[in-house]
């Protein structure tokens, strides 16, 4: 008869408990095993990724045709943009991290411009609500307590309700993650 006792010397949640159980099962069911997880207290830290991995800036493109330009049917942009925001703080020091976006600058083609407020997004994560660029600074996208990660993929859409002069319009928004 094989027995397996597991003692956990730490506050662990299901994922760590499962790891411990699997270890027990694979290693040797006849030996009692205890697992201790030691986590050092670290400095506060935030991380932010918007778009593709790497140093470049991702580009979302909307391509209209003569048939659909300004016809009121929204156009999906490509590609979708991955947003990963992480924050951690030292033990017993709960802090909130906030992700905002600045969409003040319009998209420009020569002397013509299109405001960023014509672009909306959908999301695959409820903690990032769907929204529309405000055309201003400091638009809050999400706020979360430290020691968490927020991940989403945004699909951007161009409203396409207005007729603009022909051209290639370029613009840029800036996402900022901050933790006081």
């Amino acid at each position, binding site marked *: 008869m094989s027995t397996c006792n597991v003692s956990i010397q730490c506050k662990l949640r299901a994922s760590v408990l499962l790891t411990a159980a699997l270890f027990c099962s694979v290693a040797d069911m006849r030996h009692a095993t205890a697992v201790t997880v030691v986590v050092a207290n670290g400095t506060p830290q935030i991380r932010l990724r918007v778009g593709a991995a790497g140093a470049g800036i991702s580009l979302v493109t909307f391509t209209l045709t003569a048939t659909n330009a300004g016809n009121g049917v929204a156009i999906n942009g490509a590609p979708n943009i991955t947003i990963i925001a992480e924050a951690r703080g030292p033990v017993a020091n709960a802090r909130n991290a906030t992700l905002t976006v600045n969409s003040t600058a319009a998209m420009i083609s020569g002397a013509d411009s299109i405001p960023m407020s014509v672009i909306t997004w959908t999301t695959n994560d409820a903690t990032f609500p769907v929204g529309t660029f405000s055309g201003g600074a400091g638009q809050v996208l999400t706020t979360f307590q430290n020691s968490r990660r927020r991940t989403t993929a945004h699909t951007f859409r161009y409203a396409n309700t207005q007729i603009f*002069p022909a051209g290639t319009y370029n613009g840029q928004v800036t996402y900022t993650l901050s933790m006081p």
Partner: protein
Amino acid sequence: MNIAKYAIPAALAAIVGGSVLVFSPTAQAEQAAGVSIIGPGVLTRAARVDFQIIIPRFLRFRVGVANLVPNDLIEFAPTADQIGVGGALAGTGGDATGGAVTVEVRSNAGQINIVATNAGAAGINDGGFNVISYAEITTSPIGGVIPAPVLANAASAAAPVTLNSGLVTNQNAVWTYAYANTTIPEAGTYGGINTRNGRVTYTATSAP
């Protein structure tokens, strides 16, 4: 009893306030560009996304039923008492009914002009030698944001569409046809659906 201890570096895992946050090696590799900010005080990190909208030069034009199928037929059927006594007669048909058609102009190509053409130098015929001049078919309004070209045998003068701003045109109108009824033609059926020179073709053209 065997006791295994796993010392997890702070960069890989943290347990704070009962919650577990694991920073996987994959996530770290995704952020090789140095997006992590560490330290006391307020931490701030920014990332950017570029947007691009490509808009072609275009002109869309509609007269009557959308998509040209079917063509609109405007019909006038004066009675014996009405023929030639003057006073315009309203028509029937058209997508806007009552002898009227919907007109739309959408463009970002600058000034748009509309010209109406037909195949006959003499006007609408009855299949024989009798004709009714296109001058007998009036269209209103001749002003407005999309002025209706004044119909004439063969071709009309150009009617300029009002620009909304810059190079952009986004206008709507309804054109209503009438039969002027100032002549006494031979009895018969003049024109029809693409027959007896009964078809008028409107062409919208942008500035070069």
